[in-house]
């Protein structure tokens, strides 16, 4: 098995995308509706944290921040081959009436997002839910689209996309990793 990795974005590119996403979110959202950014574990969480900082800088108001683990809501839990590990869902605010932006690193089949929306509704009734992703790689299996997209890329279904935020000692970036052809 040969694996080749192609860089889609470098660390700076990721940061630029996030800044643009943050400003689109700010422009799009009614300031009267309380805003919550909810990262989908695990890839969406660091992005949601960074977006929350950027939104706070732009609006002088910190949005609420949450994390959602969709393991228990997956539709492939007992058929998928990977062994799922269970993370914590943390929503330290009542969802009712909030505008919720779900944040994930990569949008692929849409099944993760479907599961996340199902879970959010078990916690409350948000005013609306929108979706922000850093990379949209196509291959949707459900009628789900992102409202805010950092970068669209062409990919094969067998590929993987990995995103890393720039931080101390890590250059960061988004990578397309080729799977078996």
């Amino acid at each position: 098995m040969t694996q080749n990795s192609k860089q889609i974005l470098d660390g700076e590119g990721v940061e630029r995308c996030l800044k643009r996403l943050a400003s689109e979110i700010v422009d799009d959202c009614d300031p009267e509706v309380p805003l919550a950014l909810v990262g989908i574990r695990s890839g969406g969480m660091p992005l949601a944290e960074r977006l929350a900082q950027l939104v706070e800088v732009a609006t002088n108001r910190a949005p609420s921040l949450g994390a959602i683990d969709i393991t228990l809501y997956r539709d492939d839990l007992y058929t998928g081959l990977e062994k799922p590990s269970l993370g914590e869902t943390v929503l330290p605010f009542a969802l009712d009436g909030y505008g919720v932006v779900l944040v994930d690193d990569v949008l692929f089949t849409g099944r993760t997002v479907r599961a996340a929306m199902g879970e959010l509704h078990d916690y409350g009734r948000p005013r609306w839910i929108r979706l922000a992703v850093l990379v949209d790689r196509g291959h949707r299996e459900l009628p789900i689209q992102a409202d805010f997209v950092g970068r669209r890329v062409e990919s094969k279904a067998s590929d993987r996309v990995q995103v890393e935020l720039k931080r101390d000692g890590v250059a960061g970036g988004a990578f397309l990793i080729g799977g078996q052809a």
Partner: protein
Amino acid sequence: MAGTSGGFARKDLLGLKDLSAEEIGHLLDVAEQFRGLNLRAVKKVPTLRGKSVIHLFLEPSTRTKTSFDIAAKRLSADTFSISGSSSSTTKGETLLDTAKNLAAMHPDIIILRHKRSGGAALLARELPHTSIVNAGDGFCEHPTQGLLDLLTIRRSIGGFRGRVVSIVGDIMHSRVARSAIYGLRTLGAEVRVCGPRTLIPPGLDSLGVEAHDHLETALPGADVVMMLRIQQERLERGGHYFPSTREYSRIWGLNRSKLERWARKDVIVMHPGPVNRGVELEPELADSRWSVILDQVENGVAVRMAVLYLVLGGERAARSEGRGQ
């Protein structure tokens, strides 16, 4: 079928005896996540939707059965209940026949309580496509009780290594004590047992367990005191294990003054329930600041959710290996 490091990949949960520290740790970590779910407004997730769970309880149980039932329903499984008096076992059908008939209806999990030690292991061997969860087999093990005790201890005092747990009462006939001892020893805790000599089984040395005759030596320095229920049946059925309930209570019953005299100030008192108030525990002790008895009950649901979740996951992993992935 050995557990992989950091996970739990077994089809069945029969006891804590054969589990590694990593497997137990993983079970407790997953249970910790389910605790959060039990505090939500909507206490239900779709995880086990379409899965069937049969409660086969051939010995009386209220608490354990309710706890398992709540756990299964919060995971969206369909549950079916068969109890001793309503089953064909009263017509002479053997456990294995009953189980094979149930298995032919393709349940995903059978939760078994049975008076025979090793009953759950028998089913696990004979029913390769059904996960078996032991809810108490004879004098052998009660692993989910053991796990909820471990979770309660971990949450109360932070860990196991170097901690001291004293288990007091009828050790001989207690599957609760046995599961607790296996789990605690595997996780590195020091275990003492205390009770009438007639109720202390032989062979505890090999498990590294210290036997004490009196609370006066069993309590000092202990982080946890686990009191066991004295089963009235033991006295009534002509058992000659101890002279009288009153004497038992005087010597091995726990009360405030014994705790204050001999135990650490921050000791916690546990009991698997149902409590015989006034026998093994002074009546008000169960509600005192030392008691974590209701935490045990609360943690029981989370632990059982974790077990149901993981035994099915384990089977899936095994099957996909079989497909040559």
